[in-house]
């Protein structure tokens, strides 16, 4: 850490100034060095006094302290900073990647619970709106977890990297209001999310939260690849299944004569059970099931892990203010030692 800071200090490119005009004041720092003269005292012959080495050195110290004070203040005003630096952070809690389906099918109405009043104003909200509500409540809770989000339709798009920045995940969730489009490429979305774990050592619970209506078919090769990835990253899978208005429930096994292929979500459910990693499915029919899913995820724990996070700029002006303060302290001490009045000036 220190080393990177120092190499950054050395290279000219990583510097920056917030303002440039205070540099014009820098010549002020020459004033105390150039000005000559003394405070006049009511003494007939100051020149006659013996030279005092201590006083001479004090005067020199005073000059340099005053010069340093003005120079440091001008530099502090200019606001020097270092570009793109990394700071160390401590992360606890689980690493959670949200994988949100953004395909066109998510615009379809969401199946409400059987007992719900169909005439209620929110009776026909789209699955997308339902998913967003679920995720927003999840992002608000569990403040120790690191979270990230991948959205996918035909292709996966990274919306928020794995990190502690909840506001960013919220902003990415808000952006999904534009509506869905394209197909449901579940495998690619999961693949991108799993990719996020590959950079880091396994320090504890990793969870993939898939929010989808699951209308996708995976071929054999993709299934094997995804299975291998899940096992390598040791991530558990939580599927919050958003059932379409006329869609099948995962709890009902298709009949003997019915082909599983007719129910892609059921095929997906069966496949996920063969992943050899912990797998949980939640049918998001009512807020209670969703709350249960969120609680299960919140229970996941992790060893504290240190990780580096980039920051846009490290402000250095604080050091210059500190330097100015120290110089000022020296000036104040010398000021107290100064002879303000000739002691012999009393009536004699």
């Amino acid at each position, binding site marked *: 850490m220190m080393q990177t800071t120092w190499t950054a200090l050395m290279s000219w490119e990583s510097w920056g100034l917030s303002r440039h005009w205070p540099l014009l004041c820098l010549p002020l720092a020459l004033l105390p060095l150039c000005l000559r003269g003394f405070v006049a005292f009511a003494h007939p012959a100051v020149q006659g006094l013996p030279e005092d080495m201590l006083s001479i050195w004090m005067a020199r110290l005073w000059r340099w302290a005053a010069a340093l004070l003005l120079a440091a203040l001008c530099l502090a005003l200019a606001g020097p900073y270092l570009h793109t630096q990394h700071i160390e952070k401590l992360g606890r809690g689980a690493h959670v990647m949200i994988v949100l389906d953004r395909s066109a099918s998510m615009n379809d109405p969401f199946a409400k619970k059987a007992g719900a009043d169909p005439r209620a104003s929110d009776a026909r909200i789209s699955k997308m709106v339902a998913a967003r509500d679920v995720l927003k409540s999840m992002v608000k809770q569990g403040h120790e977890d690191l979270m990230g989000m991948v959205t996918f339709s035909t292709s996966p798009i990274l919306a928020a990297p794995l990190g502690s920045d909840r*506001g960013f995940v919220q902003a990415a969730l808000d952006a999904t209001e534009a509506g869905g489009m394209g197909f449901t490429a579940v495998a690619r979305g999961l693949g991108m999310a799993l990719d996020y774990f590959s950079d880091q050592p396994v320090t504890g619970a990793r969870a993939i939260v898939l929010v989808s209506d699951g209308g996708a078919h995976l071929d054999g090769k993709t299934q094997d690849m995804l299975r291998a990835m899940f096992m390598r990253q040791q991530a558990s899978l939580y599927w919050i299944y958003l059932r379409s208005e006329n869609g099948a429930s995962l709890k009902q096994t298709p009949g003997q004569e019915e082909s599983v292929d007719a129910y892609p979500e059921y095929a997906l459910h069966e496949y996920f059970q063969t992943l050899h990693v912990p797998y949980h499915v939640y049918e998001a029919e009512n807020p209670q099931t969703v709350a249960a899913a969120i609680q299960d995820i919140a229970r996941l724990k992790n060893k504290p892990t240190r990780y580096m996070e980039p920051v846009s700029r490290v402000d250095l002006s604080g050091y210059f203010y500190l330097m100015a303060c120290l110089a000022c302290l020296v000036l104040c001490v010398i000021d107290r030692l100064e002879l303000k009045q000739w002691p012999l000036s009393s009536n004699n």
Partner: protein
Amino acid sequence: MSVSEHWRALRQSLNASQPRQRWRARGLWWGALLLGLTLLHPQASLPNRVYDWFFVVDITQSMNVQDYQQGGKSVSRLQVAKQALRQTIARLPCGSRVALGLFTERNSLNIVRPVEVCSHYAALDQTIARLDWRMAWAADSFIAHGVYSALEQTPGLGKEMRLMVLTDGHQAPPANPKYMPAFAGKAGEVKGYLIGMGQPTPSPIPKLDEKDAVAGYWEQEEVQRFGNFGMAETLSVLAMEQGQHDRNAGHGAGSDLLSNAHLSGLDAANLQRLSSQTGLDYAALTQPSELPALATGMGLSAYRWADTDMRPWLAVPAIVLFCIYLILTFADSGLWMTASRLVRQVCGSVKPFLPSRFRLKE
């Protein structure tokens, strides 16, 4: 004059300088107090000059063309666009807001709503770094549609949101200009930039494999063609006999639009046309480091209340106070004499370097 009279005169003159001494002490101690306060790092909410940007990155395959040179290496347009954006968000003043979008096919897709740039810097930076051509949900590149859709979304993202589209302007597949949409909005309503990426000389577009290695290049044979759907301008038999094939111009031999459609260069003409229609400024990017200056340009800023560092507000009066302290320290011994001596010294040291006609006659 006796010694005692002399003595009295001196004391009188010193008494006259007493208020001066008092002011000198005040300068130092008030300055010290202000400096001490800066260590507490006071902050206050003040209107700040900020920049709101909606950055839209073209992630179509033509952006994979490696026609930038950096340190002897070829770098793709997308890489340069990402570098430029990362440098830009690092230099935007705190309080600025940034939204990200991707362009491919006919749409600009907003992937992140506006977020404050300093507190969300890490996430923004990583998201930009991970932008990838594989995120494209379709392979077409209808740049006019993309710019218009981004322009439509921009006002919804914030009142003073500016739009910056980083694209090479490459249209693929080649489209019939007659079927291109017209801009429906008001030109200049949304301010911002169209940033031209790439070199004007066309280069082949690479096909990348899983590991981003070049697996081949798009050939002319593979370019999708289009028909003109009976938009012939003349219906003259003579013209047709002489080789006119308006009706199927896209398919016909020797069509200008198709001959180079598998190559991609910076289509400045296309972007400039879009720029004049939409009121966005056009600028070609030759180096990533040019972008921050464009993004913090004149006329693009907004003012917003934000937490502001109050230390400069303390430091400026402190500097003034210390200067008063300094000047009063030397005021007794003829400041003006000191100053004029200083000027003479400086002039003396500069004089040998001046051309002879500037020298003062002695």
